[in-house]
């Protein structure tokens, strides 16, 4: 084992190894694409300096969308198990924490971890059947699970006390949601967990605190997911996407890794969902699950595809594109003649069109296209001919998901015959 880690970081003794790690983390000597990534994070940190407190809602939502996208990517982008209903996990996390707070008086500081835990159990519940179901069947199950959840919210509108156990004595609130739970941050006297200054200053601080908390969570999730997917577990995820039989032949239990990916993704989604309802989002089916109980799940997929599936970083870029497209379109003050519709009212059509275009013309997403173009530009600046970097000749992640799905579909069709 030790020889492997030596060769990785390039040092025999403890000190040498530490130095090698430090050298890797030194921004000056990093590869260009990491430097650009760090710069992007810095921009995220500096963004609030350019905005008024009442404009912070958009960026905060963006950060949450990015986290949701990353949580989708780790299971669907890496292992190729397509989930069409990831908002289920956000809703489980959010509702758990909100109900605990509103109806049991448990502080969000305890409620959020419990929400995370329950979402993880949800991941287990979906991940277990997912081991048996193939492509289209799994897509269907994940698609309808959030719809069933939404129906449960309506069904137990006025109280959920199975066998006398008061899970949610005042009910799940139906379409309106259970109400606004205690916020993590608020102005002085608002009853929030952390009360900040009073008056306008307090509003300002609340907006900033919400944003930086979300951003902190995003960085944390980014680091954890990058660590997992760049570790040997990540290689197994990718291998599952490429060829499950090969994984089994190598003596690895693919099912275990698939389940792990599902639970990890669910835990991350649940955590973000729980944080969401205690900062900027009021829990309700429309708010968390979206239009027809599936819109949020679809948005998450669009974000990941725009940025690049199977990259973890991609969804952040996708979320930025998602938000910026919305802003730009919304700001265009022009009415299309003949049909008499303002450009701003076209939302979300341009975004959907963009997603379609990326899907067909650049299935690797904006991130991969960006890196490739950048390398080409740099190479030509050095006067060299660019011949493709390592790994670029291989199929994109989406291409492999497609291949996996196709095989499963073929199996199903052939069985039928």
């Amino acid at each position, binding site marked *: 084992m030790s020889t492997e880690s030596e060769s990785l970081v390039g040092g025999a003794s403890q000190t040498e190894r530490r130095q090698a790690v430090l050298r890797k983390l030194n921004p000056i000597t990093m590869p260009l694409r990491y430097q650009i990534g760090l710069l992007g994070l810095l921009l995220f940190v500096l963004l609030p300096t350019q905005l008024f407190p009442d404009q912070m809602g958009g960026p905060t939502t963006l950060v949450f969308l990015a986290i949701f996208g990353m949580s989708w990517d780790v299971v669907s982008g890496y292992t190729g198990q397509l989930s069409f209903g990831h908002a289920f996990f956000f809703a489980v996390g959010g509702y758990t924490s909100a109900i605990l707070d509103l109806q049991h008086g448990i502080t969000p500081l305890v409620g959020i971890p419990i929400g995370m835990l329950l979402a993880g159990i949800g991941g287990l519940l979906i991940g277990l059947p997912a081991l048996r179901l193939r492509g289209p069947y799994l897509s269907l199950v994940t698609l309808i699970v959030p719809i069933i959840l939404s129906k449960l919210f309506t069904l137990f509108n006025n109280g959920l006390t199975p066998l006398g156990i008061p899970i949610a004595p005042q009910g799940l609130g139906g379409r309106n949601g259970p109400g606004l739970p205690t916020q993590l941050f608020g102005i002085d006297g608002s009853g929030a967990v952390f009360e900040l200054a009073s008056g306008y200053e307090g509003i300002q601080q609340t907006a900033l605190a919400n944003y930086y908390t979300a951003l902190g969570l995003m960085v944390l999730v980014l680091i954890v997911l990058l660590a997992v997917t760049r570790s040997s577990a990540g290689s197994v995820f990718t291998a599952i996407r490429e060829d499950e039989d090969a994984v089994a032949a190598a003596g690895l239990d693919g099912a275990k890794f698939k389940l792990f990916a599902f639970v990890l993704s669910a835990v991350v989604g649940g955590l973000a969902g729980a944080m969401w309802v205690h900062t900027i989002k009021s829990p309700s089916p429309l708010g968390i699950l979206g239009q027809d109980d*599936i819109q949020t799940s679809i948005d998450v997929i669009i974000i990941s595809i725009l940025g690049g599936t199977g990259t973890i970083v991609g969804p952040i870029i996708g979320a930025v594109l998602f938000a910026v497209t919305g802003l730009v379109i919304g700001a265009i003050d022009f009415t299309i003649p003949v049909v008499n519709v303002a450009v701003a009212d076209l939302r979300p059509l341009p975004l959907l069109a963009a997603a379609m275009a990326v899907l067909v013309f650049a299935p690797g997403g904006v991130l991969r296209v960006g890196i490739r173009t950048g390398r080409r530009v740099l190479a030509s600046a050095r006067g060299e001919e660019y011949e493709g970097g390592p790994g670029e000749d291989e199929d994109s992640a989406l291409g492999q998901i497609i291949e996996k799905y196709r095989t499963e579909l073929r199996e199903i*069709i052939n069985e039928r015959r």
Partner: protein
Amino acid sequence: MVSFANVLVNAISISSLYAIVALGFTLIFGVGGVLNFSHGALITIGAEASYLISNQTNLGLHPALGVVGGMLTAAIVAAILYLGVVRFVEDEPVTLLILTFIIGFFIQHAVRVFSSHGTGNFSVDQVTPGQTDIAGISVFNIDITIFLLSMILIALTGVFVSQTKTGKAILAVSMSDKGAAIVGIDARKINLITWLLAGAFAGIAGVLLTMKNTGAWNMGTQPLILAFSIVILGGLGSIKGSVVGAYIIGFTETFTTQYIDSSLQGFTALVLLIVFLLVKPEGLFGREAAE
């Protein structure tokens, strides 16, 4: 209190609609291996077209023209979808899956953005207004029309597939692309025909659904998910299965919402489906396509 007979009539009528929606969905899957998530949007298209043709605030033509117009428009949109998009990514099921999903959303949102009703509901005059007494039960004529029309369409599809040359070619392609190609069948053309048929069915279902209840820009989503459920229940690609599945889902849905709790709409059917998926994923008639 609604009488049992009325609930029964309603269940039959709604199941008949689900059956033709599911029929189109399963045809496209059986023949082209495509899970068409934009199928729901075709329902909206049909409804919207009939609204433009037959509603008094628009052209105000006879509702029967609305039915025909809705059917044709949806069929044409389906054909455009196949020729313009699906044909190029046919070999990539996941791209296709996500793409049809996004296209479905795109179409429905486009209807919302460009129509005069926006997010509001819209209505179309019933093609057969009024009620008829059958054995002492008062039945809406539109329910009778829906049932008869659906039965006729299903029967015609059955005859078309088993008797005509084109229909047999459709069966051949669904069994084996290569085999069909060897005997000189153009799979592209067959696919186009199934998309046209599926679009027409979805369009009619949309018009009739609007006449029975009301229409809305996102009216296609719920039937789409139910159609997917029905098709899995009956066995992917099986015509008989999708009709039987439609009646199972339609009856479960109507009776639970009527007699247990109205908020159960769409709930029992989906739970039933998940149980089914885990116990018998090949569906009720999973092997029919082989015969």
